[in-house]
């Protein structure tokens, strides 16, 4: 069992290690502190943060409904939520274009109101939120579904209103899932490429996130691309690591009874 586990780990680590070996370490610092790279990184972090926020605002209520409410078509709804996971990101980008583009379903009326979404940072945020929402919803829903609904009933008999129950019981109990979902969503946002490329475009400081920059730099200078890729990996590891740090160790262990 351990052997296969190590094989699995190696499968993930070897390509990353190979990337690290490709990096020209003597020039690593100037490469990754290049203004264009920093601009792209900053944009990536800003948009990923915003997108994660959008995911939280839309995803947590969605997860709550999926895990708690009973209504016909719930299974279908759950499958639909997963669609962005299955659809290739480029196709997701096209779909967003058909919805929010200049001549899109919603984009056309917005355009008439003077709101342009494509080629803007807003488009980047939409693209990232679109592809990463399922990660958050899945995580939170899983966490909510495994929590005993009995806790919420007890809270109500103790006089807690539905809102109070949500804040004081449901959410704290779902916290581990919420955190891991948030981290997953953020990480997915950071790595988003296909949908952004198709829907948002590619302009320095506006829509050129780090993954897009890496792809562009690769055209002329593969070694610099490796350095930037490593920068992206480092940021992702930092974020994931921070979220799984000891201070967030779930205070909830199996309730014995």
């Amino acid at each position, binding site marked *: 069992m351990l052997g296969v586990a190590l094989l699995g780990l190696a499968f993930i680590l070897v390509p990353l290690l190979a990337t690290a070996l490709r990096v020209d370490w003597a020039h690593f610092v100037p490469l990754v502190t290049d203004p264009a790279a920093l601009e792209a990184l900053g944009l990536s972090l800003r948009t990923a943060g915003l997108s994660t926020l959008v995911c939280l605002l839309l995803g947590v209520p969605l997860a709550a409904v999926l895990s708690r409410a*009973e209504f016909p078509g719930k299974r279908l709804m759950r499958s639909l939520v997963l669609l962005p996971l299955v659809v290739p990101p480029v196709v997701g980008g096209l779909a967003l274009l058909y919805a929010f583009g200049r001549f899109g379903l919603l984009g056309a009326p917005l355009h008439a109101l003077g709101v342009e979404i494509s080629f803007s940072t807003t488009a980047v945020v939409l693209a990232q939120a679109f592809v990463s929402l399922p990660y958050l919803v899945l995580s939170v829903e899983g966490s909510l579904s495994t929590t*005993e609904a*009995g*806790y919420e*009933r*007890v*809270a*109500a*008999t*103790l*006089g*807690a*209103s*539905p809102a*109070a*129950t949500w804040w*004081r*019981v449901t959410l*704290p*109990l779902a*916290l581990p899932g919420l955190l891991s979902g948030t981290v997953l969503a953020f990480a997915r946002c950071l790595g988003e490429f296909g949908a952004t490329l198709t829907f948002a475009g590619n302009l320095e400081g506006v829509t050129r996130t780090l993954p897009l920059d890496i792809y562009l730099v690769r055209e002329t200078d593969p070694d610099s691309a490796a350095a930037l890729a490593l920068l992206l990996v480092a940021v992702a590891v930092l974020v994931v690591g921070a979220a799984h740090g000891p201070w967030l160790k779930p*205070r*909830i*262990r*199996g*309730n*014995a*009874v």
Partner: protein
Amino acid sequence: MSALDLELRVPSRRLDASLRLDAGQTLALMGPNGAGKSTLAAALTGTLPGQRHAVQGRLTLGDRVLLDSVRGVRVPTHRRGVGLMAQTPLLFPHLDAVGNVAFGRRGLGERRTTARRAARRWLDRVGAGEFAQARPWQLSGGQAQTVALARALAAEPELLVLDEPLNALDVTAASRMRAVLRELLADQTAILVTHEILDALTLADRTAILHDGRVVAAGPTRELFTRPPNVFAARLAGLNLVQRDGESLAFRAADVVVSAGEPDATAAVRFPVRVLSLEPRGEHALLRGAGAEGIAAGVELHAEVDVQLASGLDTAPGAPLWFGVPAAGLREY
């Protein structure tokens, strides 16, 4: 304190029950599995899941109408003032014991420190003061259940529903819990769902028996079980009951003398029976028979017989036997 008055129907679960309870009293709700005890408890707290199990009828607690399906009144769970203590403690795993007990106090509008101080007092009262800082998973089943009791009481419910609170506890923990409940339920309007007559006798002023969703017997606990009004109450009390013309005759299975021929004069009453079954109970056996003729005709009667004696009798189903009861074992009313 409040008086409870209910007349509830849950058609989907065939519950149709009416009950009254004076303020400060405890009512034991008894009956076989599936009789509707837990459904009634959930209807009281307003926690029956889903629209499919819509509760109809009327429910008043003190001067407040909690439910009136005709007038469309349906007070939500959190505004009912009906507390719940269930079979499992369901302590909030993200809070320590004090935090759990203080939960309902916060809802009463108390500040955090005040609430926690009150919570500690309640933990002391249930004898769980030493676990104040403990996390739920660190507590034993009995300890957790006492904390759950403190939590339910600390919210100062007008009515406390206890749904088989001792069911999941071992014998020692159950005994301790019974003592705690006895003290704390003294002035609390409460409904105790249980299938143990011991719990009803030690904890409840009144008892109601549910059968197939209906209240088939109700009254002061001691009276109900010493002078059972019908066979449902008698069965729970472990008594045989024979009734005729408003007169009742109750006797314990252990007081029945079984014989092949008609009993002699030591038996004050004697019933010819046909054997239904013989069930081993350790040193004894439970002999179930159906009255063959006379006042007990058709009534199921139980006799506790020594296994030695039983082996000497013809106990094949349908075999004729006599059940005799000496005067000392009879209760007439």
